């Protein structure tokens, strides 16, 4: 989205001259072509002259603004900034790629939820909460997807591995931090609820 870029004071240092229009154009192209979210540190490399974080951030917010109403949005996620198609465009895009990625089973999703909300946890912890054995396949599925990884071992006999969720999970759910996960149901509400 070109043409609407305004000139921003790019640096407190007046001797450094940066072409704001050009930089915003470069930021846009970089974000449109990137296969992963781009961090501020990476985006700063795109400027010929040093730029401060808040200048880049202002530009990104402006860029995001320019895309409002289009089928594309610029989001800030855990690993940085990235463009995505708006979810409401999905039904159209599905016409081009009819094969959808499979949905995960309840077992996988429950395991993921326990790791997300109780991390770091061992396989034993997960099994205790779910009340059943957790197959290696489930953990492997989540690891292969890049959603969980081993962050250490617990200092107990057997040195069980501790699992935690990754930034990739947050990126894939379009979230910036774990705090943006849906809040857990309060225990009291679970107790009060008596109807079906």
């Amino acid at each position, binding site marked *: 989205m070109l043409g609407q870029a305004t000139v921003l004071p790019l640096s407190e240092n007046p001797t450094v001259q940066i072409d704001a229009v050009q930089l915003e154009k470069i930021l846009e192209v970089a974000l449109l072509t990137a296969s992963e979210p781009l961090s501020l540190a990476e985006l700063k490399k795109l400027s010929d002259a040093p730029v401060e974080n808040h200048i880049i951030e202002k530009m990104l917010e402006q860029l995001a603004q320019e895309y409002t109403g289009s089928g594309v949005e610029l989001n800030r996620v855990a690993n940085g900034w990235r463009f995505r198609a708006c*979810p409401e465009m999905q039904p159209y895009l599905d016409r081009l790629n009819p094969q959808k990625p499979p949905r995960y089973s309840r077992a996988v999703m429950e395991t993921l939820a326990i790791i997300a909300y109780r991390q770091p946890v061992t396989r034993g912890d997960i099994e205790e909460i779910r*009340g059943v054995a957790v197959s290696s396949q489930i953990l492997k599925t989540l690891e292969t997807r890049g959603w969980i990884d081993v962050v250490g071992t617990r200092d107990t006999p057997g040195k069980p591995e501790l699992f935690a969720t990754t930034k990739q999970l947050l990126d894939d759910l379009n979230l910036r931090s774990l705090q943006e996960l*849906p809040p857990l149901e309060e225990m009291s509400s679970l107790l009060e609820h008596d109807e079906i």
Partner: protein
Amino acid sequence: MKTSAQSPGNTHGVHIHGQPLLEMPLDLYIPPDALEIVLETFQGPLDLLLYLIRKHNLDVLDIPMAQLTQQYMVYIEIMQRNRLELAAEYLLMAAVLIEIKSRMLLPRLSKLVDAEEDDPRVELMRRLLEYEQMKLAAQKLNELPQAGRDFELIQVLIERVEAQRLPDVTVEDLRQAWLALLARAKLNTHHRVRREELSVREQMTRVLRQLRHGEFEAFENLFEASGGIAPLVVTFIAILELAKETLVEITQTETMGNIYVRASHSLTAE
């Protein structure tokens, strides 16, 4: 938030393939196929217990153990009758339920102990609630739009249009290549690697290059006078070396006359 295929409306009931399961006759005939699907849908004994509790509107804080245990056992029996692969956890839970039930039948020995702490159901209740909390969290997590499933990422092509990037070579690379050659040459002792002045070689190349036109060149033109005596000597040795290797022809038409040099064979390819 966007809703997904998973029914978000009633999050508390048991859902089988997105449909709330409202009726589960306990004593009536159940089509075996349907039951199999139902039983396979449970995530374990806690899930089954929760289903029974919610279905029969039981109070989690005051579970009627006799009723719950009886219903649980019905399911276990059906599972076994249908030869479903019964996870050990289901049998273990049956034992736990019966144990709790029997402990509740025993008279309380000490009236000093807080009734609630003494309640053998407390641990089961805690586990049920914790599991239910995670089960609901999993549902909500699954409803969040996922990259690739509910939205696509933008990725515009970068077409590398420039010439293919060429390898960088450093002097050190060249040195390493040479050292490798020497190391190999050392193994083949018959091969002789001569110690030689590189500057002579350089001058040999320079002279040859200068003679590329194929014509005779005046001998003195092959020297660069600006560099002092040493380069002149080196160039002279280079020309002699070229002559020795019969790469150049040196001619002199008369004694004390001009000396001319030309490449032994002009390059037809050039």
